């Protein structure tokens, strides 16, 4: 099916790891780690940390929390590495996603912000940058009001740029159900933000 340039750019970060490390398959790296090569685990961290960090950041809205979840998840993955039976990327994603959901369940956030975010800005002028600061905190607040499953779907689709098929694969649900979640999330976000931005 022809894909058009739209509001969403679809990438396949989990399926295609970075080229530099891709010559050694995950299961081979895992084998080395299990045999006692602790440093080989660093290869898996470098391969998958960015998309996982983006997921945690999108779900929690806090760089500090995202770092903590990422660190805890990789340590947990290391300790239980012998239990990987299928794809490592899907397995570690599930650990991170569950970490985010647990955090959302346990912590009641009243304010979410990317204030500590030092990501480069795509906005040219100071006025645009000011607008962006306002928009990002409004978007964070709106995202925080969504049900976790809707937020997860929106973050995976829009922030991580995944295809519905890839999302279904990682979350173990159907493409139809995920489309429904994303559409509902968009609808809810538009209702929450349109008064100010539409």
């Amino acid at each position: 099916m022809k894909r058009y340039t739209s509001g969403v750019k679809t990438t396949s970060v989990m399926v295609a790891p970075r080229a530099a490390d891709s010559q050694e398959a995950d299961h081979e790296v895992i084998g080395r780690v299990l045999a006692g090569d602790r440093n080989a685990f660093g290869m898996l961290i470098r391969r998958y940390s960015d998309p996982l960090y983006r997921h945690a950041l999108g779900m929690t809205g806090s760089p500090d929390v995202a770092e903590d979840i990422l660190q805890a998840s990789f340590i947990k993955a290391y300790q239980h590495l012998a239990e990987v039976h299928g794809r490592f990327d899907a397995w570690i994603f599930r650990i991170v996603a569950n970490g985010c959901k647990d955090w959302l369940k346990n912590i009641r956030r009243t304010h979410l912000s990317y204030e500590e975010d030092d990501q480069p800005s795509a906005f040219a002028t100071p006025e645009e940058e000011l607008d962006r600061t306002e928009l990002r905190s409004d978007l964070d607040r709106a995202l925080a009001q969504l049900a976790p499953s809707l937020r997860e779907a929106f973050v995976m689709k829009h922030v991580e740029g995944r295809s519905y098929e890839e999302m279904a694969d990682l979350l173990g649900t159907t493409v139809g159900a995920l489309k429904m979640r994303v559409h509902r999330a968009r609808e809810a976000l538009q209702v929450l933000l349109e008064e100010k931005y539409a």
Partner: protein
Amino acid sequence: MLDNLDPRERRSEDTPKSRETSAARPLSDREVPLTGDTRTATLNAWLDGEVPESEARATANARDVEFWLRIEKEVEVRREAKTPVHVYRQIMEALPQDAPAALPWYRKQVTVNPMVAMAATAGAVAVGMAIGAALTKGR
């Protein structure tokens, strides 16, 4: 509580559900059409990359298209987010010094092929015959 990290056992909320049980699912997961009109459907199709922006502009509300372009500009910045450099070092330092524990034999995956099945059956029959013979001899 220990986390179940077995990828074959998904969390209950992630378990794929059949269409027959759709009524039991949360409303947000049911595969029922949204109540939105054609404009909303076109907008979603554009955001999903299924129709070009020109079609979205022609069919959907122009304000909605502008709204989502603005949101997309913000989201694009987030899409470029990279793991801070110090996190890699922190994780490596926090890893246990020992190699990950091997799985105990009772948790290892067993692959049953016809040869293994036949050998197991033959073994079970042999054990059964031995027990039967011992019982008969004991009477």
